[in-house]
């Protein structure tokens, strides 16, 4: 009953091709955006913004990037964090070396640098597939942080290799409070997500999916495999690069290259898998799940230990976090291998009729 499209007639091609063809979706999306842009900065504390929402948005962007590559183009990658590192370091250097460089432009250029590196490490994808490609992208994962640490120029010869992001100033306005940073990140993520949503249903996106589903067949119908795969790597790395720049500039402030390690790559891969491979919405759901869950477990455990007067050691919380985290990943894979996005889709199907039997 709540999700019925009955009575919604499409009279133009434009209406037929709309991003959200069903009215409920459109209104829900507008409501979510309104809440995110207006409600959240008004009512949430600094802790929520800096510790939860900004990382959630940054990771959403990164997993969106990985989802484009893995979910849509079918190329498994473990180098996500490395591409993020490229974006962060490049944006930092553009800010540092070129006086008067606009911050947004340096984010963009950071993303483009990441795209170039992504193309470079995407070249092996023409010959190898699946796990072996993942191992090849693993090379990026180990090479790039090493390079950034080794070559002092990248971090402006700071002793520890840590880069400290410059303050964000756009058109004379300083984005220094958590609220402003949050809004900036949200705006960037929203625009890029819209772009991705459109991209995956364009000619390029359909070519990606064709390559993913069967590369030989795609080649036969005239899709250029080389270009399609490399474009996927470039776009994906661009997203990851921008996410990396935001990670450094808006979230942490100062990052060390070793922070972009394999664990981060895996985290993002988790987000994609748990959220839903090959789904834009899934990237957001997965990022929310993986970012929020450890905190939820901690809150619940502390609450439980207070109410039941348990004396949990300091290590126990993190152990239980590991346990529940691993357990939930397995649980989700068993219950729904296509991730949270698919669960949501099923829910929507159910909501068409529910609560009436017919």
């Amino acid at each position: 009953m709540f999700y019925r499209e009955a009575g919604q007639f499409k009279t133009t091609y434009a209406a037929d091709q709309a991003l959200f063809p069903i009215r409920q979706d459109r209104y829900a999306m507008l409501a979510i955006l309104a809440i995110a842009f207006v409600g959240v900065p008004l009512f949430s504390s600094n802790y929520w913004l800096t510790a939860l929402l900004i990382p959630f948005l940054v990771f959403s962007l990164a997993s969106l990037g990985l989802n484009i590559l893995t979910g849509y183009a079918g190329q498994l990658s473990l180098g996500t964090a490395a591409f993020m590192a490229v974006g962060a370091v490049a944006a930092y250097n553009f800010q540092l070396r070129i006086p008067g460089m606009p911050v947004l432009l340096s984010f963009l250029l950071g993303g483009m640098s990441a795209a170039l590196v992504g193309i470079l490490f995407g070249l092996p994808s023409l010959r190898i597939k699946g796990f072996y490609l993942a191992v090849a992208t693993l090379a990026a994962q180990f090479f790039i942080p090493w390079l950034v640490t080794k070559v002092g120029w990248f971090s402006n010869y700071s002793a520890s290799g840590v880069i400290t992001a410059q303050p964000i100033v756009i058109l004379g306005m300083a984005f220094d409070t958590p609220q402003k940073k949050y809004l900036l990140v949200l705006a960037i993520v929203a625009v890029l997500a819209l772009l991705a949503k459109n991209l995956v249903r364009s000619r390029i996106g359909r070519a990606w999916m064709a390559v993913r589903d069967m590369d030989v067949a795609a080649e036969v119908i005239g899709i250029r495999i080389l270009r399609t795969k490399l474009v996927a790597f470039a776009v994906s790395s661009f997203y990851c690069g921008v996410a990396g720049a935001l990670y450094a500039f808006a979230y942490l402030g100062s990052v060390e290259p070793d922070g972009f390690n394999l664990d981060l790559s895996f985290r993002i891969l988790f987000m994609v898998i748990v959220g839903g491979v090959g789904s834009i919405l899934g990237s957001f759901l997965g990022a929310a799940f993986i970012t929020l869950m450890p905190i939820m477990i901690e809150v619940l455990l502390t609450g439980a230990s207070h109410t039941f007067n348990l004396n949990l050691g300091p290590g126990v919380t993190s152990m239980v976090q590991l346990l529940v985290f691993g357990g939930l990943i397995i649980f989700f894979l068993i219950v729904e291998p296509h991730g949270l996005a698919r669960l949501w889709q099923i829910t929507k199907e159910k909501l068409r009729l529910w609560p009436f039997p017919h």
Partner: protein
Amino acid sequence: MTFFFEVLIGGLLAGVMYSLVALGFVLIYKASGVFNFAQGAMVFFAALTFVGLQEKFGLPFWGAFVLALAAMVVLGILTERIVLRPLVNQPQITLFMATIGLSFFIEGLAQLIWGTNVRRLDIGIKDEPIAAVLERFDIAISSFDLIAALVAGVLVTVLAVFFQVTRVGRALRAVADDHQAALAVGIPLKQIWAIVWSVAGFVALVAGLMWGGAQRRAVCTDVRRAEGVARAHPRRFRIRARRHRRRPDHRRAGKARRGLSRPVHRRRHRRLVRLHDGVAVPVDSARRLVRRKTN
């Protein structure tokens, strides 16, 4: 020149240590096509269980070994029950992700049971240069590394024989080749997976003892490092039989089959035997299946 040889031999022996962990990867990949990311965690779990048993209950070496082995077998069977069985026929990446989840789970579980303290793991082999070699050639080779290499060699040989000769080994290879076909010829997939995870648990225990012994402690990070290296290995150990499925005469055979010219049990029987001529799938089990069908 002595330095060169010392580094060469030392490096080779260190590589053998890695191969101990890699062996576990290969086992599971070979038998189920699952890329088991949790192998490192299993090594960690095994070593920690061993040390924990020794410390808490004062068990002797073999007592702790047997009990830790039992724990690994239980872990393997539970993994099969809870994680793998519901995920049959899922794409490889899903299974891979499940093992990543499993690795988190095992790590958490191990530390929850045995605590997070860094522990001493002493298996009674001295980590000293062998005196005779040191005197004669002036090359320092750790006796521990040498014994670890020997253990690894023995393990590899035993497992190779196991896979080549025994009935279970053949069944394992058949499962690796094609789950469905193996099921159809009557290989009990569930049992096989439980077996292979238990064997991998055994390898993990040995690897954990060797690694922990070399480091004198059972710590997560060392094992984690091993994962990185072992990750690249499995390709070499893939069995050759896989290619047989793509041969054109099989495709023709498939078309003929669809023509319904032969009775059902007959067709199935012939197909599967031919399908697996590379791995020598037990014909008798195929026959048994046929008999069951016709009865």
